[in-house]
């Protein structure tokens, strides 16, 4: 199912009307990092409905979603299945769900073909990568080049910890993403969930010299000052409102951040709308 540019950029009236949350006037709020439920979960349909209900209550107009499998080094069959479910979610919640194509870059040809299928034929708006490889490993280069060609963003899982993270031995941090951005400065690269756990001060400082990298503000960590530090060091133009399912924490951080309303508008939706408007296919 392809989505027209007009439908993509239109503000769903239902979300604004149902919201109990007040945002700066005139802003269309887009969650740049979310997930629909994996269909192996017996309550996946209810969970998806609960996500939309929460978005309604919090005044979030659209959610950019992927589905990740339990096995993160996914085979092509597995990542295609996940993306089929995302496409199904886009049909079930028209105008509310924007699709990220999740792929495993280790399957170079299959991953590229799947990204083309999702973006060119089904209206997906970007690519989501997890932790199978560090972001600066050469195996990612074909996907980076394809994202540039299709003019879609690449959202990369990230975090920095001083401790070894055995469950995620190849988690990327701001340094890895900066290295990829240095090779491909025209790539719309998004560093995932600054509040998703890890040393967020390190991450922000590591991204300072990578001006093409956006930072999504998602996560459950509610640490005071993170949004202001990101805005001060990176600039509000590089920040994206996102929740990664931690919706009240993410909404509360933006509400509490001591920033001008114009900067909040950029963060809440204008920056991501600008990314979406660059998409090469409609």
């Amino acid at each position: 199912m392809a989505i027209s540019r007009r439908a993509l950029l239109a503000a769903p009236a239902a979300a604004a009307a149902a919201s109990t949350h007040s945002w700066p006037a005139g802003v269309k709020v887009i969650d740049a990092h979310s997930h629909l439920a994996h269909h192996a979960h017996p309550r996946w349909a209810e969970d998806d409905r609960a996500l939309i209900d929460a978005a309604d209550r919090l005044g979030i107009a659209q959610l950019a979603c992927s589905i990740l499998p339990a096995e993160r080094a996914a085979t092509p069959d597995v990542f295609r299945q996940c993306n089929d479910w995302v496409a199904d979610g886009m049909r079930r919640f028209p105008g509310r769900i924007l699709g990220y194509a999740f792929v495993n870059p280790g399957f170079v040809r299959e991953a590229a073909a799947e990204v083309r299928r999702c973006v060119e034929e089904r209206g997906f708006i970007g690519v989501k990568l997890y932790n199978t490889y560090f972001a600066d490993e050469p195996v990612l280069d074909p996907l980076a080049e394809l994202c540039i060609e299709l003019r879609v963003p690449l959202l990369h899982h990230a975090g920095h910890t001083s401790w070894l993270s055995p469950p995620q031995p190849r988690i990327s941090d701001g340094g890895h993403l900066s290295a990829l951005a240095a090779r491909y400065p025209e790539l719309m690269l998004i560093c995932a969930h600054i509040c998703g756990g890890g040393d967020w001060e390190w991450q922000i400082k590591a991204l300072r010299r990578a001006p093409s990298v956006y930072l999504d503000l998602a996560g459950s960590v509610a640490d005071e000052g993170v949004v202001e530090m990101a805005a001060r060091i990176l600039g509000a133009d590089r920040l994206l409102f996102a929740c990664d399912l931690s919706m009240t924490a993410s909404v509360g951080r933006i509400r509490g951040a001591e920033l001008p309303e114009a900067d909040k508008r950029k963060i809440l939706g204008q920056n991501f709308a600008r990314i979406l408007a660059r998409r090469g296919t409609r």
Partner: protein
Amino acid sequence: MIDLNAYLGPFAFRHLRYATADGLLRLMDRAKIEQALVSSAAAITYRNAHAGNEEVAAETAKHRGRLLPCAVLNPAYAGWRDDLAICHEEFGMRAVRLYPRWHQYRLTDPECVALVQAAAARGWLITIPVRVEDRRQQSWLVDIPNVDYDEIAALLRRCPEAKFALLNGSGYTSSLLGRANNGLPPNYLIDIALLTAEMANEIGQLVRNLGEERVVFGTGIPFHYPEPAVVKLEILDVPAEVKRRIASGNARRLLGL
């Protein structure tokens, strides 16, 4: 609103922008929080935690109507009984925070049980922050796990006469602490700082499982923004009277305000 989960003073591993009484009051005003139970953030890493109590007593002295000082006591350190008496009788404190992982003892150690019993005998509230920071962001100098829920449950059983507030935790509904009819004494409340009000809605589950009198407002300021907890309360799908109890009524009862 009354915030059971607030702090003053510097923290060893991260700059806190609103660590003074004036700063904390600014955050509270912004979020419409009337009163907060505040303890020393520095005492988490001081060897002699009582030095933090002295700092908090002095910093809150001019703001006792809004900032309610709370002790940090370490049962594994010399002189905690003297410190408890000073905090109560000189500083007017009526609650204590325990940091068993940072101060390296177990909640069921005899000295900790003795401290809890002594504080309870004075009518104090015992608060236990399950964590200070997300473990994944801790400094390379420390590796401090969250307080174990089974260990907390064992203390609740050992001290049924004490009243507890559990702070900065989540995932209670997957443990004994958050289940209905769990056989534990109903001597503990849970703060909402890190719970969800959306999707899985752990706050709503705890209200159903434990009762509306067992859930309490808390933010974690100035470590945290206050607004996430405020938003949770705003969108929580419960009657207005239940929200009022969570926002302030339960804390008033606990602290005897």
